[in-house]
């Protein structure tokens, strides 16, 4: 339909013409929460979702490879590392999606630059400072002001995807006691006007921090029983905190947790399985807590990492920095299964590294448009289509 015809039709049927307008302004689904899990250090995807049926896998990894008989088969080609058995019920129940070969063109193999690209959703030759979540909230719709915060970081990890000077982001390490104490003793002076923009910013940030903290404090989250047992250790505590926040009724659209130690240049057969076990049991405990409290349909868990690792093992029982890797998306509204194509183990883009098959921004587009229902032009890639209607 050309523009003239459209206008004519619209004039004849004024009510119909309002439909696209209403759709475009449909309220974002702020009852939905995204739990981001950063796998810091560059997770080796080939030893997490193992292409066990590909003979090249064993050839590339005589030492660090996972034996075919140990793999937990997901289909006839791919299977989970054995330490991830806690995740198998979610997979079988079709609540776990795996995006395959996630990466981007012209990949950067530096930890710092790599995570920067993932945090800011830029092309690899661009630099930005505002995190991708904050870009979504800025370009689309911002979370309601009555929410406790725009995002909460549990643990010591970076603010990363939430970084922005004007967003309400709380960092709650070790259950958040330090931040809460700070909020209690901070004297937030009212803005009487007459000051400059810098002073107004300081006062507004103080107010915002105090209000966010008060909203969390009011829910007494440290007293909340999440209804599931979380694995011991820092990562388990982070996810337990995330569960307590949500079960306690703290309104927030994004929670970010971090599991570090994935830079397995050496000793990978010892180190990575231990991390994957934490990841799997943590996600599973979180899902149990959510299910018990009727929240599983309202949360989506998503993993990311600065890069995957080199298909060919190195000489010290490890793998070096690489490119594409699989990532998890889980939740009650998630359509389980594989998304995208498993990268080839022979056709490397630079002779050494996996060619990405899924752009990482597709995962972000999934969060923005499929999950929250926010339209954001800067995410050019199509969403994966993992969210149930």
């Amino acid at each position, binding site marked *: 339909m050309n523009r003239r015809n459209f206008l004519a039709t619209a004039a004849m049927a004024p009510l119909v013409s309002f439909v696209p307008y209403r759709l475009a302004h449909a309220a974002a689904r702020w009852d939905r929460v995204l739990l981001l899990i950063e796998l810091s250090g560059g997770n080796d995807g080939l030893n997490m979702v193992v292409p066990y049926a590909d003979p090249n896998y064993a050839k590339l990894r005589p030492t660090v490879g996972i034996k075919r008989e140990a793999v937990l088969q997901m289909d006839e080609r791919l299977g989970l590392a054995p330490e991830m058995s806690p995740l198998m019920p979610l997979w079988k129940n079709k609540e776990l999606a795996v995006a395959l070969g996630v990466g981007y063109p012209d990949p950067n193999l530096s*930890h710092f630059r790599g995570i920067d690209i993932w945090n800011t959703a830029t092309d690899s030759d661009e*630099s930005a400072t505002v995190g991708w979540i904050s870009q979504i909230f800025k370009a689309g719709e911002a979370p309601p002001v009555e929410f406790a915060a725009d995002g909460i970081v549990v643990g010591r990890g970076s603010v990363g995807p939430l970084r922005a000077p004007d*967003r309400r982001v709380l*960092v709650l390490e070790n259950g958040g006691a330090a931040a809460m104490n*700070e*909020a209690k003793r901070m004297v937030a002076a009212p803005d*009487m006007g007459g000051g400059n923009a*810098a002073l107004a*910013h300081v006062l507004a*940030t103080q107010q915002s921090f105090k209000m966010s903290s008060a909203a969390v404090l009011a829910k007494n989250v440290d007293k909340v029983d999440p209804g599931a047992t979380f694995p011991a250790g820092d990562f388990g505590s982070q996810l337990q905190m995330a569960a307590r926040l949500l079960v306690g009724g703290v309104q927030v659209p994004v929670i970010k947790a971090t599991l570090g130690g994935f830079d397995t240049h050496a000793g990978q057969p010892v180190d990575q399985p231990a991390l994957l076990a934490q990841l799997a049991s943590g996600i599973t405990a979180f899902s149990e807590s959510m299910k018990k409290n009727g929240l599983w349909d309202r949360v989506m868990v998503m993993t990311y990492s600065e890069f995957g690792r080199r298909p060919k093992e190195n000489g010290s029982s490890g793998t070096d920095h690489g490119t594409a890797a699989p990532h998890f998306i889980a939740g009650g509204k998630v359509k389980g299964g594989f998304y995208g194509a498993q990268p080839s183990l022979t056709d490397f883009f630079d002779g050494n590294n996996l060619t990405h098959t899924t752009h990482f921004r597709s995962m972000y587009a999934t969060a923005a448009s499929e999950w929250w229902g926010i339209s954001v032009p800067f995410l050019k890639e199509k969403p994966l289509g993992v969210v149930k209607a």
Partner: protein
Amino acid sequence: MALPNPEIRHLLARTGFGMARPEEIDALSGRSYAQAVDRLLDGVATKPFTTPPDWLNVPLFAQLEANLPKDRRDAMQMERREDGREMKAWWWAEMLNTPSPMTEHMVLFWHNHFTSALNKVSRPELMYRQTELFRTMALGNFEKLVKASAKDPAMLVYLDTNSNKAGAPNENFARELMELFTLGEGRGYTEQDVREAARAFTGWRVVTGNTSATGWRVDGLQHDGGSKKFMGRTGRFDGDDIIDIILQQPQVAEFVTEKLWHDLVSDPADRVEVQRLAKAFRDSKYELKPLVRAVLLSDAFRDPQNRGSLVKSPTDLIVGTFRVIGTPPANPSLFAAAGRALGQDLLDPPNVKGWPGGLSWIDTSLLPARNAFMNGVAAGVEVQVTGKQTLATQARRDMKNLPVQALDADRLKKMSALPDAEVAALLLPVAPVAKINGVGGKVGALLLDPTYNLK
């Protein structure tokens, strides 16, 4: 003691670390403002005051390292990490102790412009050499500074020039040279220009195994000596030629002037003033000292409304505070740790763009650490003024393990005895906006006032 001269205080706060010692303010007071500016600029040192770590002048082992047995290589990496921490601590000590804070202010300005990061460069001696370059040339000539930065070993590693070779050019440095160092993003260059410029820098290498003056050489076999088309010109350009052509573009002077304006005067900048100053900067063939002088003498800089209109960086907050009410640090690595906790890990900027700065120094995620730190300082002030030791543990915890002894008891006792207005005029850029009754008496109240975050 009378009220500190507010205009001199402003001058020193903006060119140093957010505030100034009373004796520094007094030393420049009592003459015309223009004379004070000249005296300040003439006194900017080009050498560090604090003795650098003694491991700095060892030969560079990069090439040999790969041939070493693994345990020796691991030991070397451990040592290097330790040296890196020492290097950071040394710079914090220098900023806290130097009689020429403007020198270190400018070193930090250039560190945030021609960025490199220890986490990628990994060799602290190269990062030290880079700060030395900035120290020597901080207020020198911008053209020389660009050319020297392009050859600086840390930069050669950080932006991959060191692996840029004929036939397989790496565009990293060429792109940032235009986007971040000279022209500004997308201003007056094309992707084709980036590709051609990258060819001109092929073969530029770090000299390893000795301590040559520049640490730079051209590997003729890796250098692409062919003809390049760059910004509408054609020739067998090398890297210096490319920089010459870039510096003929008028927007370079504007770009650099605007960045200096953001650092020294206000954000956003006054466009008309920036253009006026940029023209003079270009006419002077990029002399930095006259440019900075003109900025400091501008009406906008001197306007009393301009005071307290910039947010202090974490470095300003920590260094400024401890220069004014602290003692020379016994363990400067604790200051580096505090900077990291508050959001500024010096020598490890977040990315090649450096710290975005300005209002972004304070957000809801960074504010608690900043506030906790200042609460710790206020508690430390209470301990040092009243001798009430019960607060010492809390002070130390909140000050990121800095002991209360890092605060100067004598200075604080004298300050606490001064009239309120005098202390406020020394510690704050504008009148306080909150009435805080906490620890540390009147000094503590001012340290926790929201305006203490401003300069």
